[in-house]
């Protein structure tokens, strides 16, 4: 018999062990897991390969003093959405890339690099993706301190 939602979450908790910094379940089918950025790649690999979740997308946000990256994984059999979140200070916007273990994260990490200025360490192809060719380097349009003067 296929496992139900609670069994899936139990299995996730066992696989995660004591890696997560925080664990939040605001709704039955939604789990936020905060991880330290040094554990991010290994945790994403665990979610993707061992746990069997599907990588949906990722979001990068400027939350003031820090930048936050949220990777969204989905477990379609039970409709569970797992959000792996990590934070990094603006002065050191480098987080490990998960593209080597989750190839689908390639373009979204390049997009986050373009728009929010998060540098993904270990990304195989960190070229500019969506900004215009003549866009100045080091200006990130979705940072809070960017003023729209165009």
């Amino acid at each position: 018999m296929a496992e139900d939602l609670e069994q899936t979450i139990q299995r996730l908790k066992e696989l995660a062990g004591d890696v997560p910094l925080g664990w939040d379940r605001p709704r039955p089918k939604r789990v936020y897991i905060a991880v330290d950025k040094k554990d991010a790649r290994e945790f994403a690999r665990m979610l993707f390969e061992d746990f069997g979740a599907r990588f949906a997308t990722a979001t990068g946000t400027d939350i003031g003093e820090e930048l936050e990256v949220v990777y969204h994984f989905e477990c379609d059999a039970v409709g569970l959405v797992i959000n792996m979140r990590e934070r990094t200070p603006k002065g050191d916007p480098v987080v490990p890339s998960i593209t080597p273990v989750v190839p689908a994260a390639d373009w979204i990490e390049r997009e986050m690099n373009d728009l929010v200025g998060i540098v993904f360490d270990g990304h195989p192809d960190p070229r500019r993706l969506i900004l215009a060719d003549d866009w100045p380097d080091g200006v990130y349009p979705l940072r809070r301190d960017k003023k729209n003067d165009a």
Partner: protein
Amino acid sequence: MSVLDKVKLWGLKKSPWVYHVNTGACNNCDIEVLELLTPRFDVERLGVLLACSPRHADALLVTGICTRQARPRLQEIYRQTAKPCLVVCLGACACTAGIFHDAWHFAGPVDEVIREVDPDAKIIYIPGCPPKPEAMIAGIAKALQDL
């Protein structure tokens, strides 16, 4: 107006060939443009053909706000068209920039971008988000009447 110009204008009004340029649209207007070609509206019965190259075009159908990346390309496409060439700003974004007016990737309204190349360009506006296919046909028919 010389005889040659009269012939050109007659040809344009008889059967306007249209080149479709997406300068950063969300694709909704583009889907409605496709509607024009389906049997329900079938603009080919009115002589409107989608051209494969701007050099064959009598009208540019521009959808979307003009983004920073698309701006020089739109100007280059307009330069390549045979004149006279209508420019049809299709949809709220192309007409007024709409909700993207203050966005970081916005590089000027389509009409201003075109007027930089040709101050006398014939520009028509078909608003809507997206405009109905009937509105597009009516807009182009009206513009052709006024030529």
